[in-house]
């Protein structure tokens, strides 16, 4: 019975995603990627993008947009999605109704994730209209993988703590920085505890590498793919357990 209620509520969760969480990254991407494109459009006809130089340029800009949008869009889609209901007291209205909080937030997570993947598909399609066609299928796979990790991290943190947005951003940036350092030739100079920390943190670098391979149409490295997917799934389970076991009011 609560499944039907929640399914019916899904359209409101999708509206919330579009209105509160999608418009800002969408506008940012249009501004950051679209304005330079418009500025450079003088003298760049449709034929230009078909040339080797044009294709390379379009590809380079697209990859930059991907690297910017995917983590940022996932951040906007997940930060505060659970914790703000708790902090602002909205949960009192939602969960005095016959609705389990775990199912409500799992559905919200899935709906936001689908919205995020669709939004990135839309951006890729728009990109193709003004420059060169990029594979929608690969773009959406890359977005889905990003959602598994970044969305999973946001889900777990939102269920567990109060300032999940800030902690999510810091964790992801620290993970990215330490893992890229560890993978570089300077990695050998890193103290052991920092290497250990880099290994423990969410696999941001593996995600980045897998994402790029997907966009380039290459098969992802299985080890990296499973690391990202497994880590994301574990975070998701932690979030679910926190919602199930911890009181809604803290």
């Amino acid at each position, binding site marked *: 019975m609560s499944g039907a209620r929640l399914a019916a509520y899904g359209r409101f969760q999708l509206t919330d995603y579009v209105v509160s969480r999608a418009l800002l990254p969408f506008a940012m991407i249009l501004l950051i990627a679209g304005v330079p494109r418009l500025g450079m459009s003088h003298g760049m006809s449709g034929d230009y993008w078909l040339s080797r130089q044009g294709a390379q340029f379009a590809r380079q800009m697209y990859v930059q947009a991907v690297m910017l949008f995917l983590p940022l869009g996932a951040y906007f889609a997940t930060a505060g999605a659970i914790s703000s209901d708790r902090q602002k*007291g909205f949960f009192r*209205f*939602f*969960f*005095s109704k*016959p609705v389990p909080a775990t199912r409500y937030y799992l559905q919200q997570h899935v709906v936001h994730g689908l919205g995020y993947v669709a939004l990135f598909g839309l951006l890729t399609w728009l990109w193709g209209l003004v420059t060169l066609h990029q594979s929608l299928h690969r773009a959406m796979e890359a977005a889905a993988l990003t959602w598994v990790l970044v969305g999973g991290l946001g889900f777990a943190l939102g269920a567990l703590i109060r300032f999940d947005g800030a902690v999510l951003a810091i964790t992801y940036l620290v993970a990215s920085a330490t893992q890229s350092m560890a993978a570089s030739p300077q990695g050998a100079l890193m103290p052991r505890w920092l290497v250990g920390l880099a290994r423990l943190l969410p696999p941001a670098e593996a995600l980045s590498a897998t994402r790029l391979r997907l966009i380039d149409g290459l098969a992802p490295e299985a080890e990296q793919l499973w690391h990202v997917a497994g880590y994301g799934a574990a975070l998701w389970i932690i979030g679910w357990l926190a919602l199930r076991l911890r009181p809604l*009011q803290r």
Partner: protein
Amino acid sequence: MTEPTTQGRAVIVLDGVAKTYRSLLGREVHAVQDVTLAIGAGEVFGIAGPNGAGKSTLLALLLGFLTPTAGTLAIDGLVPRAYVERFGVSYVPELMALPTTWTVVDALRRLAVLSGVPKDQVQAEVERVIETLAIGAHRGKRLRALSKGNFQRVGLAQALLLDAKVFVFDEPTHGLDPVWTQKFRDMVNGLRRADRVIVIASHNLDELERLADRVAIIDKGRIQQVVAVHGGETTARIAYRLRVAVGADVVLARLPGATLLANGDIDVPAIDLAALNAAIAAAIGDGALIAGLAPRESALEQAFHSAVGRGA
């Protein structure tokens, strides 16, 4: 420890319930302590207490938003969270908190869907509660544009979307004007049903006196006393104020301890109803004419003040 008492079949049962908060430094705050209580079907049960007494914590435990650190709490035999997830509770919290970008009608539609109102009846149900709470003029307004009283009416409206067996109101008339305070009372009387429990937490003793069958007086996290509001008038010792048209001296002679006030009224110290009537009858027999009689405080107020002190 308070003995469990109930009017009908016990729906809500608390047994030795406690909630203690512990800070990181190990400091303990006992928000609720050793509460044992049973609330029966068909009952309107009040919870009265000063600020910080533990009323809202008790309600949060009842709704399963918090878990007790000791004791057990059940609604219809289920732990509160399981009960609420399965059947829902019509709840109006003390603090109205909904996303303020939502419009009134949008908020009610969403909460109707979560309440389990069938899809084809959502609009009709939303219209029904909008009409009941007379918020039609505000239906398209964003919640942030509403006055406190109108926001509170939206809170009451959403509680009516669910045909629940348990209603919980936390300071329900907070922010309502006198007209809507009266309408709320009518609403609660309309909600009374043999299989339904209505719990109302309030500072307002007058309100509880008018609505509740029993009132638990809570202070410092403990239930100090449970007062049966109705039917206790004949035995309770209550202080009265008398207005005497003729023969104040005669009345004073018949009521030991009574004092004459500057405006001519007489304050009578706590006395039971039979003794008061006997004294007045005797004074009238001696030639006094009584123009008015009113209790200086109700049995509930008296119990409240004796439990928590006059300063509360």
